[in-house]
């Protein structure tokens, strides 16, 4: 993954020690979850992270403020992820729905449910981005490889350039369902035709 040179600016709550402790008051807790959710989304958007390993990230700056020596525990992180899943589908456990595919590709950490998709753009949103790009560049009816879409010169500068291939496929599947695209080919040389 390419990491932009400018550092991510953490929001104010990141420097607020109780932010890392699960709040007992229900309303407060909800406010806390909302803040964490938007922090995770903007963090991943900034670093263009599409999926993260929870056990991995529990040690990274996102969940561990070394300056304050405060960290969000793994179980609290899971709670935030659950909150994001239920809220606008902003997260999804990667290994739960990939039973027949490449499950546990990078899942070297703890058992199941460690890898999580963070949808700062949902597959639907990616799908419409791709769709409007195809439309805008008049490529309806042409065949493009997935590689061309994610790494090709033609898509350089678009938002989905460098996107996780698996995520792109999720998005493309949505277009397929809508009858806007067709996917064919083998595992590692997939092609897409747009209508």
């Amino acid at each position, binding site marked *: 993954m390419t990491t932009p040179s400018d550092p991510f600016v953490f929001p*104010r*709550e*990141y*420097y*607020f*020690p*109780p*932010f*890392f*402790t699960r*709040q*007992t*008051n229900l*309303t*407060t807790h*909800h*406010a*806390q979850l*909302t*803040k964490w959710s938007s922090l995770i989304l903007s963090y991943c958007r900034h670093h263009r992270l599409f999926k993260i390993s929870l056990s991995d990230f529990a040690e990274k700056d996102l969940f561990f403020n070394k*300056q304050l*020596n*405060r*960290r969000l525990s793994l179980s609290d992180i899971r709670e935030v992820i659950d909150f994001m899943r239920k809220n606008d589908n902003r997260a999804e456990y990667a290994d739960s729905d990939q039973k027949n595919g490449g499950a546990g590709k990078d899942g070297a950490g703890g058992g199941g449910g460690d890898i999580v998709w963070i949808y700062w753009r949902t597959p639907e949103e990616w799908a419409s981005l791709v769709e409007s790009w195809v439309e805008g560049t008049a490529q309806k009816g042409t065949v493009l490889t997935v590689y061309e879409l994610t790494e090709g010169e033609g898509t350089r500068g678009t938002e989905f350039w460098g996107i996780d291939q698996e995520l792109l496929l999720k998005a493309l599947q949505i277009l397929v369902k809508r009858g806007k695209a067709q996917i064919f080919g083998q595992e590692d040389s997939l092609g897409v035709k747009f209508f």
Partner: protein
Amino acid sequence: MSRKGIGLAAFDRSRLKSASYASHGSNLRSANASALETQLSVFRSLLQQFAATHAKDIRSNPTFRAQFARMCAAIGVDPLLASSSADGSGGQGGGSIWSQLLGRTVNDFYFELAVKVVEVCSDTRSENGGLIEVRKVREKIMAGRVEGAGGITEDDILRAVGTLKPLGSAYSIVKVGSKNYIRSVPKELNTDQSAVLEAVQVLGYVSVSMLMVNLRWARARAQTALEDLVGEGMLWVDKQSQEWEYWSPGFMLESEEFGVGTAG
């Protein structure tokens, strides 16, 4: 002409005298009254003129507005009382002399501000339990303002909250220590809770032992006050310090400065 005024004529004369005194008195009175009337009308037109010519200043210049409000207070006028007390008649007939005089500029300014205050309070209520510092409200409103819209002062916000009074007791100003807070939930703080909130202002947080040492409270008392405030959502708890610390959510907004300095 007799100088001494003896005899029957003296009675007449005294009657005449008192009559002329009376008429003179009523002359004076009416002169006074008409003078007052003209003064009042002059004052009125001047105030009208003043409000008309300075309407922009009143809206945009906080010091000017503060002066104006002070002037109104000095002559016993509450420019805000005007329309809130006279909304029964509806249409144009409504509105007291002041709102008519001032062309609603002053009123509108505070009502619009009041709407913003309500917005800020309800936006942040879930994280602060409905208690927010006036200063924070001002910062938030200022941050959301378009450039050139003119500044607002804490005094303006206090007045704006005052305009919400007819809506019931939901919004009010609470003084804790030296700071003004806006309370947007209909709950009263007891004295222990106020004392804790005052203590929190110093460092941004307190702990049970800090309260025990500084306020000479028993452990149970400190614990109860803190837990009550956490229960109300007015404090956030940090369990990752040696002793649990209870933080004011208002400190979250200040943490930029905190992130840079505050060694401890």
